[in-house]
């Protein structure tokens, strides 16, 4: 008779796993925790390149509340999240449903889908900038060749069209990310459920609403959380394409904070970053709570 390996049953982890985790924990502390704490501390100081550093309590935070530029960029940022995240998730879900089927060329399609995600954000933003260009941009060229417009359109010229000009590159780049997450979720759904539904004569929309979507909910929450936090921090497409213009209409909070850091006011820049951090934290808590409720309800 073989003896059961006793060592495993009686193994006391003790401190050993912590030793293996230590390098990672140190990295996190060094590159994430310390900078965040540093920014938190700086946000309570007047800290400029030209007057030095001194404690000023909540002055930066109160200043932000009276700062029209802050409200403008806060409004833009929230609108950006509100518009871009749903678009990304809906498109991503669509791609995932397509790829989940036994399509021919599936591996190739999957690679194609991932290309936008693999291109660095600043570079893809540069590409979009060239598409929007007034004189020799692709968008105006196509519309003109089709005879749809006589004069080129100044895409970045009005607040509304400039808004969509920065939303589109972000959706284009990140929908594939959502698709990959959804695809993983879809492939974890037991195939018998679909077979049974088919036997019961369910319409494919019924299958989607009753089986796919409910079972995808945990994955959906994860994707929503990741995309929301990421969209809140949007920087690259805006910095490259509009520079925050026209008239500050597309200035995100990140760009607003960056402008202060770059102009020599580190204290106020840090304070803007902390506002961003707080907003992201609150939204994350709401999502996690919603996910828990949903889990308890089912």
């Amino acid at each position, binding site marked *: 008779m073989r003896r059961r390996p006793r060592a495993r049953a009686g193994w006391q982890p003790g401190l050993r796993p912590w030793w293996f985790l230590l390098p990672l924990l140190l990295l996190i502390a060094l590159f994430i925790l310390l900078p965040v704490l540093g920014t938190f501390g700086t946000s309570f100081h007047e800290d400029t*390149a*030209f007057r*030095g550093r001194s404690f000023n309590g909540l002055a930066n935070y109160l200043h932000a509340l009276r700062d029209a530029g802050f409200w403008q960029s806060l409004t833009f940022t929230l609108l950006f999240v509100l518009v871009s995240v749903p678009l990304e998730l809906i498109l991503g879900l669509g791609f995932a449903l397509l790829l989940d089927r036994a399509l021919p060329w599936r591996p190739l399609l999957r690679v194609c889908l991932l290309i936008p995600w693999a291109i660095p954000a600043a570079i893809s933003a540069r590409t979009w900038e060239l598409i929007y260009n007034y004189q020799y941009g692709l968008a105006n060229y196509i519309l003109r060749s089709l005879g749809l417009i006589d004069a080129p359109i*100044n895409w970045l010229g*009005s607040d509304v069209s400039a808004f969509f000009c920065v939303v589109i590159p972000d959706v284009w780049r990140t929908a594939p990310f959502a698709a990959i997450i959804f695809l993983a979720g879809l492939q974890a759904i037991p195939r018998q459920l679909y077979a049974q539904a088919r036997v019961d004569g369910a319409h494919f929309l019924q299958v989607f609403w009753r089986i796919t979507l409910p079972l995808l909910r945990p994955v959906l929450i994860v994707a929503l959380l990741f995309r929301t936090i990421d969209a809140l921090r949007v920087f690259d497409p805006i910095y490259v394409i*509009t520079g925050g213009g*026209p*008239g500050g209409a597309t200035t995100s909070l990140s760009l607003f904070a960056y402008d202060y850091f770059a*102009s*020599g006011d580190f204290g106020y820049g840090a304070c803007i970053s902390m506002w961003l951090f707080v907003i992201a934290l609150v939204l994350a808590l709401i999502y996690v709570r919603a996910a828990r409720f949903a889990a308890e309800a089912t």
Partner: protein
Amino acid sequence: MKQRPGPWLLLVALMFLLTGCGERPGGLRFAVGGAPHEAAFWQVLVEEFRAETGIDVRLDRQPTDTDLRRQELVFALQARQSDPDLFLLDGAWLAQFAAADWLMPLDPEEMEADAFFERVIAMADTYEGALVALPVYVDGGVLYYREDLLAAHQIDGPPETWSELIEIGARVQAGQRARDPHFYAYVWQGAQYEGLVCNFLEIAASAGGGIRFEEGDVEIDTPANRRALSLMVDLIHRHEISPPNVYTEMKEEESRLFFQNGRALFERNWPYAWARHRAADSPVRDQVRIAKLPHFAGGRSASTLGGWHIGVSRFSDHPEEARRFVRYAVSRAVQKRLAIELGWNPGRTDIYGDPDVRAANPHFAVLADIFAQAVARPTVPYYPIASKALQRHLSAALSGRLTVAEALRGSQEAVEEIAATYAEP
């Protein structure tokens, strides 16, 4: 018995590490712009300087973008690093560096400060009475125009006033449209960035206006400035002689290419564009001319002062050698070569009349006049912050979201708030 190499290897590695960190190659570090021809020019100078004095100078190539250059320097100086010892500074952030006490004061006599443009030294290089930098080369807005197109429409010279520019521009544009439906009369820099403020400032000065925000005394929302901003809006939206993308896409290079491709009659740009317009591959090579910018009736031409200044870091550990290099970089001989070899505009006035320089750059006759009349951006340390607020409001007027009056009132209020926050208590 086999020897274990481990400890020895470790020791050797440690020694390399320690010497690598502790010892810096001797000599000065000089942060310059990264454009290839600029870096190559300084490389030659640095080698000649070494041959002459035995002092080593190593170049740190910086990005070409002004904001990125400032950031790099701010981070180094904030950390009190001893290198770079020397750097080139944009006039727009000189005051901030001086207020932070990052610049070593220079002796005006030792540096021959009298030989430079007086207004430039007074408005940009002096902070609270001390000379803190010297202009290596100066810049100011100029008007480029197409002589052939003016001649074709029987116009004998560039416009003197803005209304002449509008009148001539509309006529030539109408004539050219038959050949090129996207021809525009006038291109300038209107995107939301520092260049927008520069363009606004010189138009405002040509109406007798300008901006001032020293010592809590903010002056932006004035009748002259309203006239200037109205002109900028009207050029795009009312007279339609400037393309709509002026306020969304046009920075220096965009307007230069637009003009250089033969699609514009007039262009506002910095003097650097001259050499590019005259390059062998430029389609407007023989047709382009240079002039002062127009002014409002009763006003006079003005140019926003730009350019790069050389300064010595407060934290340099070789201040004596660094000052010696400054003296060398702004010496008559070097400034003359800057003008002849790079076509850049020296900060010294005594170069502009030099026969060799005139032979290489006939347009210097116009430039010397322009620089003597330059207007500077406010020299307060919080200028970069105030400028961002100005950019937002001016751009909103150009895009039509705010009226001219609203934009200037908004700028006034925003900058008052900024001045109250950052002015010395």
